């Protein structure tokens, strides 16, 4: 972590956090974990709509798989009951396993798609699964000059 911070500081053109977009939960199907796939306007110029929607849809699929009430979850419950829930000390629940998959997926998406576009997706579990936080970064180096120019232009125009 320290190394990464150091690297960031070494960058000639560093990025600074400019804005955060929060993708809210989609409660239309109940309290099952789903996120809205509506493309936020702030990201319109930063990332393709399809990429973003794919990410959210994949996340929704993951969560649906985690919360699925089926054989595996039932067996897990029975096993837990039988062992007086001591099994939770040794075994990872199904949901936790899927959460790890989700974390890995988000990490991979960040690396491949979002970080090159100056965006970062935060795992919703860190927000209590209420929102997907998308951080928008700006190029500190060039944004400074461009903002300067725009302000100059604004003043000159006025």
């Amino acid at each position, binding site marked *: *972590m320290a190394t990464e*911070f150091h690297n960031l500081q070494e*960058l000639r*053109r560093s*990025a600074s956090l400019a804005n*955060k977009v929060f993708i809210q939960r989609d*409660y*239309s199907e*109940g*309290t099952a974990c789903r996120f809205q796939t509506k493309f*936020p*306007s702030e990201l*319109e*110029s*930063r*990332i*393709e709509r399809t990429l973003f929607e794919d990410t959210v849809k994949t996340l929704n699929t993951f969560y649906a798989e985690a*919360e699925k*009430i089926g054989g595996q*979850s*039932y067996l*897990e*419950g029975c096993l837990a009951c039988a062992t*007086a*829930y001591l099994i*939770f000390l040794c075994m990872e*629940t199904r*949901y936790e396993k899927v*959460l790890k998959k989700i974390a890995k997926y988000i*990490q991979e998406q960040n*690396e491949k798609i979002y970080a090159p*576009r*100056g965006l*970062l997706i935060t795992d919703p*579990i860190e*927000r*209590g*699964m*209420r*929102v997907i*936080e998308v951080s*928008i*970064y*700006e*190029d*500190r*180096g*060039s*944004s400074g000059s*461009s*903002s300067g*120019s*725009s302000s*100059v*232009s*604004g*003043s*000159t*125009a*006025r």
Partner: protein
Amino acid sequence: MPGLSSGGGGGGVGTAVSSPPRPFRPSRYVPVSAATTFLVGSTSLFFCFTCPWLSDSVSPVVPIYIAVIFIFTLANFCMATFMDPGIFPRAEEDEDKEDDFRAPLYKTVEIKAIQVRMKWCSTCRFYRPPRCSHCSVCDNCVEDFDHHCPWVNNCIGRRNYRYFFLFLLSLTTHIIDVFSFGLVYVLNHRQQLDTPQAAVTMGVMCVAGLFFVPVAGLTGFHIVLVARGRTTNEQVTGKFRGGVNPFNKGCSRNISHILCRAQAPRYTGRPYMHQKMEVQPPFLRPSLTEAQLEAKILDNGIQNDRHSTRSKSSLDQMESQSADAEAPPPPKPDLQYSGLPPPDTEESSLLTEAPPTPSMFKYRLAYNSPGRNHSAISHSNKMIRGESLDSPCPSILKSSRQPSYRSEPSSLDGVTLVGGGVGVRRGGGERGKGSGGPGGAAGGVSGGVSGHSLTGRSYTSYPSSLVLSAAGSHSSSLRSAQTAHNPLATLQSEGTTDTSYKSLANQTPRNGSLSYDSLLSPSESPEFESAAHELSPQKPPGPFPSSAKAGQPRVVSPSSPLKGYTSPFLSAQIAQQREGQLLQGSATFSSPHRAYLRAVSPPPPTSPRPPEAQHLLQYGQDLSSRALRNTSSLSSSPGARSLEPPISPPPRGLSLSKSTAYTGETGSQYKLRPTGGGTMVVGGDVGGGHQAPHPPLPP
């Protein structure tokens, strides 16, 4: 006894502390301690005193069975007590930025076609998800909040409701078992009731019997809740009384939902696995097409189709379509501003009523109000501008933007019309130049401030529809005049400009801006020169004087705008040829030129401009530098000097009157700009020689 707060006593009452470290209140632990004591103690006594006889007399299975039930009860009790019920972590500050003072208290969400209200939790700083409630005892928002149970000293929520429910079931069973087997013992020891075992057994039976009534009642209550798919909170507050419960999935599904659901994860106290991602610029900008197209359309007021911004074919399209400069505003640009707060849309809607280029104004507004939330747009603009030098996109942007500019001339009967049209707007827009500044800059959304900003400014700076209509009428009149006079020239100019534009579109402007300079890069000079040659003989000298005086520089413009385009590339010969003609109509050009200069001044020239780029039709940031060059070039070639004015289309409206005064006068040019004052040194060089090697950029 739902245990909502009765047993809690002082626990939690008056707890105003919202921070995690809550004061230690021993009273909170009385009920849970009592419950634990009774449960464990009684059962232990039962095992010690009653079970030996039971195992001997009845069956050894009995104690084992009771032990199993007891362990199950205890396990569920521990899970219900110690498990996180589904506490939501407090929202971070940046999440509730907008939801502070002006945010409504309730947000409505539709769940299976039923409206459910989400209340804003001021402690936790978010809108409570459906079925979430804030526990005043624990001072936390709990997901699927059921109730706060004092007997376990914990909230019952999504994560531990199952264990609580099973605890209730198993406790009821255990109580029944203990009572029953105790009764068996007592009935079998009626004569030995004074023995300790019997006494203890009777004591245990009394405790069991005492707790059986409330526990069984609670168990039955929760069985009904589970079957109905409700929480205690919902039941007690009567949320769905007489209404439909959107969370009710049917009895069996509700039961399976409670008992067979996967164990939900905890939100608090998770292992912090933050992977620091390096977000390093330059950033990719994928969505240039849409936004850029819209921006271009907005900038020029020329409705081009949005399909192929970056392709050369789009340029062709735009050029062919630009003939109608007053096409209806595209609906799409509105989408660009979907993120804008209402005031923006209101303003823009007002402006959209202006016939010629409503979209321009909308675009402008976005930039006129920097405080708005269209940070994305401005951000993107800035980024694009910033990136123009770095990322591969700018070239596309610029090329995509270029067509808009090019199409203008081609559409409006060649260069002249374009100039004229622009000039009209300019004249009208001069008043609002200041405001147009940022707008113009914003106009360069597509990434290039140069060309876009200029045209953008011309439109935006004059938001009044009156001016617009005047401008429009001017342009249309000019256009018609133009057409009448030089259809052939127009065709030719179009042809040349078309080719030049297309070729230019493909190239990346060297200076990184979409100025006219870049459009008329030296590489294109041969085309221009040839075009100029072709056109010049066709331009009737007659119209020149009349048009110049009549404020219809258009007539002059057929050749002059072309000249303007080609000025950097025209040889001195050609320039001198034009000089006479230009001077007549130069007045008109000066003003737009100045206007352009002024408009362009804000964006700083970012790249070296070709010395030949003297054209007056400056659309971009280069204007200032261009003026410099113009100055120098003009000084070098007197003919070239005169080229300056003709290039810029005569401004309509205000500028027209002043244009006449331009001839040979430095100051006159400045008069053209009501707002700019005499700052347009650049323009001055046209008339009275070249001044200001450094075009002063109005602050």
